[in-house]
């Protein structure tokens, strides 16, 4: 193949930097788990985004194996499917240029803004990392402790790996369906205030579905707002709004890993695919810096523990023994109406008029909150009946484990 080999050798060195970088979080997994990881992406039909990504990843692998003609062929196939895949265009540029002359850097175009090239390199890195360490087959994320029968699917964003995972609810247990590359805030995560270009970390749910035809092109083929700021965010004084999951502009297949103003951005094929599964008002969206993959048995222990705590709380409420009931609440408890002492006074006052109380919980969901302490978001439909009041509402609580005990720190309407 022509007289290209010496040039291309340098080119390989440049791209090797992408491979050599530490993959990170998955290194914590035991070896036996790594061996049973999903080897290949689920290759769906033509044009499916995982197919497109697989082509680019395989092209990068071909480069590593010094099979450059194969690499170019794979890239051309990806670009046939979607010419606006910028990362693919850059790899193609480098592959072609390496045939002509020695490369000095990646993205060898004189007027290229270095940040733009760097962005594409990061995208290559995270996309490749996904295939180097795919989601483990026999493990589940500990974030999804229990899904209610209404939640057919759950969405889990791993901001550290620029990935969103879609899980199906199988009898309360998450079953992996697919995962997609995502873009998050320009300045990363831990959103604090409006305009800080960060993506919030927390447990949210989809609140609406917006018609893409009414939106600017920037939002692409779908947009799903989530309920940031939630009760915890508000407690922390966090501001801003309009955090969405959405698609990409029509001239861009995918955006760099960190490029949004805080939204979670997917490619258009992916937002359409994900959108088919989203149930407004139900689908949970957990945004975490890292997904903690655990064995089913390990998750089961925590889930049982919480189910029991919640059941005890329910029984203690029915008992009308205020001491037992209030023992489930943390001293620092807050609700939308006030603090713990206000809550206690109100509950005690109400309790005086009760001769019987019956509480039924259904559609229970327990999601682990990305937090420094063990914390979960619990939500359920609460059917409350007593001698003088009947009420059915959706409730949301945050439980935190303090000194071996789970305590409710927040309770409000869900």
């Amino acid at each position, binding site marked *: 193949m022509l007289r290209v080999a010496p040039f291309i050798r340098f080119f390989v060195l440049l791209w090797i930097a992408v491979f*050599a*970088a530490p993959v990170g979080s998955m290194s914590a997994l035991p070896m036996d788990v790594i061996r049973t990881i999903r080897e290949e992406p689920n290759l769906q039909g033509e044009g499916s985004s995982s197919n497109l990504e697989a082509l680019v990843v395989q092209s990068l692998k071909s480069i590593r194996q010094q099979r450059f003609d194969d690499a170019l062929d794979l890239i051309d196939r990806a670009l046939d499917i979607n010419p606006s895949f910028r990362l693919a265009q850059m790899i193609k540029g480098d592959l072609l240029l390496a045939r002509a002359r020695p490369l000095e850097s990646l993205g060898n175009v004189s007027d290229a803004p270095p940040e733009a090239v760097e962005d594409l390199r990061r995208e290559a890195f995270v996309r490749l990392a996904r295939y180097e360490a795919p989601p483990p087959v026999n493990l589940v994320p500990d974030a999804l402790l229990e899904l209610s029968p209404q939640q057919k699917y759950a969405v889990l964003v791993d901001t550290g790996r620029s990935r969103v995972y879609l899980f199906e609810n199988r009898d309360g247990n998450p079953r992996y369906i697919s995962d997609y590359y995502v873009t998050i805030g320009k300045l990363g995560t831990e959103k604090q205030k409006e305009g800080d270009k960060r993506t919030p970390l927390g447990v949210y749910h989809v609140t609406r579905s917006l018609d893409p035809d009414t939106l600017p092109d*920037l939002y692409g083929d779908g947009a799903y707002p989530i309920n940031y700021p939630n009760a915890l965010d508000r407690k922390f004084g966090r501001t801003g709004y309009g955090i969405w999951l959405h698609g990409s502009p029509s001239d861009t297949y995918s955006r760099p890993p960190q490029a949004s*103003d805080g939204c979670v951005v997917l490619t258009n094929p992916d937002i359409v695919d994900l959108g088919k599964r989203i149930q407004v008002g139900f689908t949970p969206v957990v945004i975490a810096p890292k997904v903690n993959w655990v064995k089913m048995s390990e998750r089961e222990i925590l889930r049982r523990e919480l189910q029991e705590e919640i059941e005890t709380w329910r029984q203690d409420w029915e008992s009308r023994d205020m001491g037992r009931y209030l023992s489930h609440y943390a001293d*620092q408890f807050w609700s939308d109406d006030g603090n713990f002492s206000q809550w206690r006074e109100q509950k005690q006052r109400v309790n005086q008029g009760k001769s019987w109380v019956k509480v039924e919980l259904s559609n229970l969901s327990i999601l682990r909150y990305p937090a420094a302490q063990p914390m979960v978001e619990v939500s359920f439909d609460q059917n409350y009946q007593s001698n003088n009041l009947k009420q059915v509402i959706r409730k949301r609580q945050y439980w935190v484990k303090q000194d071996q005990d789970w305590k409710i720190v927040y309770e409000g309407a869900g």
Partner: protein
Amino acid sequence: MIVMRRISLSLGIAATALMLCVTPAHADESAEIDKLLRQGQTAQALQRANQWLTQHPKDLKVRFRRGVILADQGRLNEAIVQFAELSRDHPNLAEARNNLAVLYAARGEFDKAQRELEQAIASHPAYATAHRNLGELYERMAKQAYDKALNLNKTAPSATENNLSRLALMRGLASESTSPQIARLAAATPTPAATPPANKTVVTPPPITTPSTTVNNLAPLLKSPPAPPATAKTEAPAVKAEPAKTEPAKVEPKPTAATAVKPSAEPATPPVNPAQQAEEQAAIAALKAWADAWAAKDVNRYLTFYAPAFRTPKGESRSAWEASRRVRIDKPGQIEVEILQPVAKTIAKDQVEIRFRQRYRSSTFSANSAKSVLMTRQAGKWQILEESVGR
């Protein structure tokens, strides 16, 4: 055509001696044509070649000359036909394939050009011109890919010409050359650089921001004194216990809100010439008329604001794009479209770029987004050549 004229300048590279066996049946005729060419009598040379070929349709050298003349005259399609026929009749005639490649490249058909050059090299591995041309072609293709990768050069067609001018068109057949030059040319080809120092430019990508382990740390909330929280005097600055400021559930995308509200006058611009300013104002007026047509859902009028050369967002055909716009705009319900804070900049003659904020409002949705358009003036009318969201 500028491109072709530049190519014709590279006559100097003419002769690489390839071991082609061409029987010079009528050597004189091609020499006569060459003489006319040297005298600058291109038209006569072509006429003479055409005449000769009616009698001697298979004359290799004259056919080759004719192709070169057509290329010189910028008659790309005819020149391509001529060299394609030659390649068909003489599959191993590397010069014909080389020239075919140069012509394809001039038309932007890089894939075809690449195929021809690779075939030329396959039949004549030492063919230096083809090697060089292929290198140039790869560079050109790489540039194209980079531009797409980095969204560069949307409006700079000049680069094409520069690069193509370096693709060398063969003026004659190597077999005609009197001085074989293989050795010299081969030596002159750029020597591949030695393996570069390993430690150069190998940069590990900086890790994507890893959040601190104190994500959503509730400690400040939990550790506060159990006594009635009179005036919360906790040390943590992040936790404002009281203010829990609930924001109304607005649907607008929050992005750019900060930059949006900046009605301050634009920074003092360098002195502009008033004529140019008037042009820019006219372009802005056209943009506002475009927004009005959109708001009025007058699709036909709306579409008249797009230049014939308008670059459709997904590269789809004009008609497909128009059809999709019709569907989108022609939806029931009232809408408002407003152009805010337009800032116009003259890019070139009859080309103005306008950056602005577009406020869109319907019964279900409102958005305020940054946009820019590239407008072009044709026959006194300002039209949109390119439309993009963001900046």
